[in-house]
């Protein structure tokens, strides 16, 4: 087991992997990423309504929403006092643009029984729409609740990290649109270095900043880090992100072993019962 410190900022991303750095401290919650994504990928409007969840009327990533901006109000303290002197950059009204994490080891991909979900040459995780048959196993297999089945075409959908754009050397739609560069696209290792520097700089200014998506936080439990990672200023669960998720397929082998063991026991019992059962004497 590695100690915390060696895991911080560490990712097992392959060389040449591309991803996102989403820096919440620069995010103004404008939702340009949501719309730019829908525009490029031509995703339809969701079934919508007023949620009253601050300014989040999207709620969740889904089959037709591949970027989702979460809004968490932390304006007043428990006594209801509002602050006036604020910490540098985003504070007191937390906004995070959530997206598929493109895990280094992806639960959805390992679960997919058809091979529809693949790892591309950019080390991103993509659902091949010509293959997916909508079995839906990737949906609960994702520790972050990213893929979802679409009622429109019955297939699973999620962020492709604009695979088609990357193929033509174009930047993904969301990071390109982001007005404040809160979403940055690039080689994962370069982004991770940038993130570490940024976090250090923020901490020097007294901001409780942290990276979400290294092997210490978010990219844990065999996931090996997230190619789309984040800089947060609050515990991840505040943003509806699991702190230490686990790669579900880690449990496959142990589970098969216990099952086999049970099979052995029951098998022996069954054999015995047919071998040893004696004739029943009447009277």
């Amino acid at each position, binding site marked *: 087991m590695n100690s915390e410190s060696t895991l911080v900022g560490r990712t097992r991303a392959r060389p040449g992997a591309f991803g996102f750095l989403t820096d919440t401290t*620069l995010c*103004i*919650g*404008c*939702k*340009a990423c*949501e*719309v730019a994504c*829908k*525009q490029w990928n031509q995703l*339809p*409007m*969701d079934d*919508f*309504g*007023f949620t*009253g969840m*601050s*300014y989040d*009327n*999207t709620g969740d990533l889904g089959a037709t929403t591949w970027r989702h901006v979460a809004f968490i*109000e932390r*304006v*007043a303290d428990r006594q*209801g006092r*509002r*602050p*006036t*002197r*604020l910490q*540098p*950059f*985003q*504070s*007191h*009204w937390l*906004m995070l643009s959530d997206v598929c994490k493109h895990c280094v080891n992806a639960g959805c991909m390992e679960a997919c029984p058809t091979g529809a979900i693949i790892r591309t040459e950019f080390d991103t995780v993509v659902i091949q729409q010509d293959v997916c048959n909508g079995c839906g196993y990737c949906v609960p297999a994702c520790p972050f609740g990213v893929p979802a089945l679409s009622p429109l075409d019955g297939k699973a959908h999620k962020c492709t990290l604009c695979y088609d754009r990357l193929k033509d050397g174009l930047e993904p739609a969301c990071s390109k649109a982001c*007005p*404040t*560069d809160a979403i940055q696209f690039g080689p994962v290792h370069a982004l991770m270095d940038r993130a570490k520097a940024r976090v250090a700089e923020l901490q020097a200014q007294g901001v409780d900043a942290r990276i979400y998506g290294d092997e210490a936080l978010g990219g844990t439990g065999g996931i090996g880090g997230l190619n789309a990672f984040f800089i947060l200023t609050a515990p991840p669960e505040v943003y509806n992100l699991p702190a230490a998720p686990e790669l579900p397929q880690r449990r496959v082998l142990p589970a098969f072993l216990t099952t086999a063991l049970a099979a052995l026991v029951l098998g022996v019992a069954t054999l015995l019962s047919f071998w040893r059962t004696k004739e029943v004497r009447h009277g």
Partner: protein
Amino acid sequence: MPGLGARLGRGGATTTLASLAESDCIVIMGSNMAENHPVGFRFVVKARERGARIIHVDPRFSRTSALADLHVPIRPGSDLVFLGALVNYVLNSERWNSDPFFREYVLHYTNASVLVSPDFRDTEDLAGVFSGYDPQQHRYDPSSWQYAGRVQPLDGERWPCRPRIEPERDPTLQHPNCALQVVKRHFARYTPELVEQACGVPRDLFVEVADTILANSGRDRTTAFCYAVAWTQHTIGTQIISCCALLQLLLGNIGRPGGGILALRGHATIQGSTDIPTLFDLLPGYLKMPQAIPQHATLADYFAHERPATGLWYDMPKFLISLLKAWYGDAATPENDFAYEFLPKIGGDYSFQSILTMMKDGIIKGLFVMGMNPAVGGQNARLARQALANLDWLVVRDVHEIETASFWYDAPEVRSGEVRPQDIKTEVFFLPAAIAAEKDGTFTNTHRLVQWHDKAVDPPGDARSEAHFVFQLGQRLKELYAGDESPAGRQIAALTWDYPTVGPHQELDLMAVAREISGYRVSDGRPVAGFQELADDGSTACGCWIYSGIVTPEGEHRAKRRRGDDRASLDWGFAWPANRRILYNRASADPQGRPWSERKKWIWWDPEQQRWVGYDVPDFPASKPPDYQPPPGARGLEAHPGTAPFIMMLDGQGWLFVPRGLLDGPLPTHYEPWETPVTNPLYPAQPRSPVAPVFLRPDNPYHEIGDPRYPYVITTYRLTEHHTAGGMSRWVPWLAELQPAGFVELSPELARELGITTGDWVVVETARGCAEARALVTERVQPLVIAGRTVHVIGMPWHFGFGGLATGGIANELAALVKDPNSLIHEAKSFTCTIRKGRLQEGVVR
């Protein structure tokens, strides 16, 4: 716009968005920049990354506040107290009085040293009004506000102009009547204590803001102010803005990189539609629309009354006569005053709100609406719809079937059965409009930058550009009036209206219009290089002198230039005037013409070349040396010394004291909003603006001050996800889903009192009407303690209406018709209301 214009010379933003990145401190007040100008806000974030301090003064904690270092919650409508207190704090601060920079800047670049007429009386002396107030007419006679000095008439002019004034000055700035001392006395009572009492801002917080601004202004540092309509939309909006200009002049922040005042505007070319105004009181280039008064009877009269002897406006005849040539061509001759008589003369106030009442009162019978949605965006929306229903005919041009087009069958009162379509006589035409990507043309952005947009495709179906519509309409009308010798017939006949057309829809060639706007020599049609080439003898034509030269003599449209760089980007688009990016940038150098500091250098005097050089186009005669002194009797710009950055002003200086140009006083004074729960702590006898135009009519009732039936302050605003009255966003699925319904933001404190839960339906009510919305209970809104009592604030986005995908109660149902006397802009940022849990009858809001 007059707010900046009266003190600096031009109404436009003095700086650019990009320049914000060089600020050391950015004060965002009267604006929710991150939400309404997200892309502009990236320069604020850049500045923050470079260590700048970001201060947001706003009643609500918004997405802008979230990125700020200081959030200062302030009572809506008390901004001027806050700004006035800043002025007072600065004037009495140790730094301001000890650092020579401030004295040097103020002494040379402002009118601090001029002596004000001894007849002038301040509001402090007259319990809330300035001298010259006529309580019957609710108007000011500004004669007592003038400079003390010699008045000398000018002669030997081709066109007459106003006499020239030689003001007396006191370079020591000690004379009790010098502008600086007058200002000092005027603001003496604007103390941190008053701020706490009137704005609800804790004393120490105010002091921190003041110290931060002061510490970040000076020779080597600059502070910028960003404002938007939350300053404009008050009965004293112009004065709030002008108070900011006054403050920035005192701090030496005007005309310098990272300084200045950035007006953040809401529509693609709202700046352009003011420069080339679809406004009743202006002609292109901020020339005054002639009025039906003897002083404007003839062209000469007009100049004698409007044309100053000094400053750039001395050239007014060149601009106006070139405009007349552009409009009336050969029909405009020296003999007939260049067809001046064809220019209609205005006889009153025909601004937006008055138009609504004139429609309702049957004076206006036909209306064109192009890309606007008054049924939602008009204050007292019910009255606005009644006005529409009283028209003979209505032409609406838009991309979606907006409320203004559908009111006759879809309005709340129609749905509720109160009114039946069969009772509405209006003949309605809806014409589908084209969108920017479907037409050639230019927009002028918030910092005066004119940019060309290419036509990518032809508009679909019957959709056409406004250019197409207006051109076709003009042609048909010219035919209809052919041979008509009546004055009406002669007027339209005189108009030049022959433009080449292109494309399948006979769209007219926009370049031809652009050339006319830019100006050309009448003899051979060659484009002029700039307004310096315009003449007052009819030999040149120019549709808008401040855009003059936008088409080069070679025929290139400079708004099509697209070579940016990381400084002024002089080759990206064209910024009026004459492609100057930071206005009054002469002030970025000291009186001797040297940069104030290496860090803040922008333009400076180069003794070798004997001209002004630098990163920007000098907003100053390029070869006028810093030590130039005007000869006696000099006129126009010749009359300005080499140290006068404000070339549009009479004396070339920024005005701390405004002798002319403002209708509600030479100095900013705090008056309460027309509807307010509290009284005016400064002038109990004169709580509200003495000259605010009001509409006293039964269909536009007002709330008394402190009316117990309407105890809460309401402020209206916009959201990132929507655009103005929603015509371009509430019908667009990707935007509609992000903010799908109208809502009201209120504090948990108030919600607890009223038992309101997030998601509940609530009804907000004023004497004008009521609007239904969903409740959002949030700590981002907070009650303020004003003069010892708690004042609750309610916030309501005004985007929503009954049409489109994202619907909601119309906030403007609640607002009243009442406005600022200078800009004639309404007051929607602060009025009073009440709110209750529940709904209006079903169906009123989908």
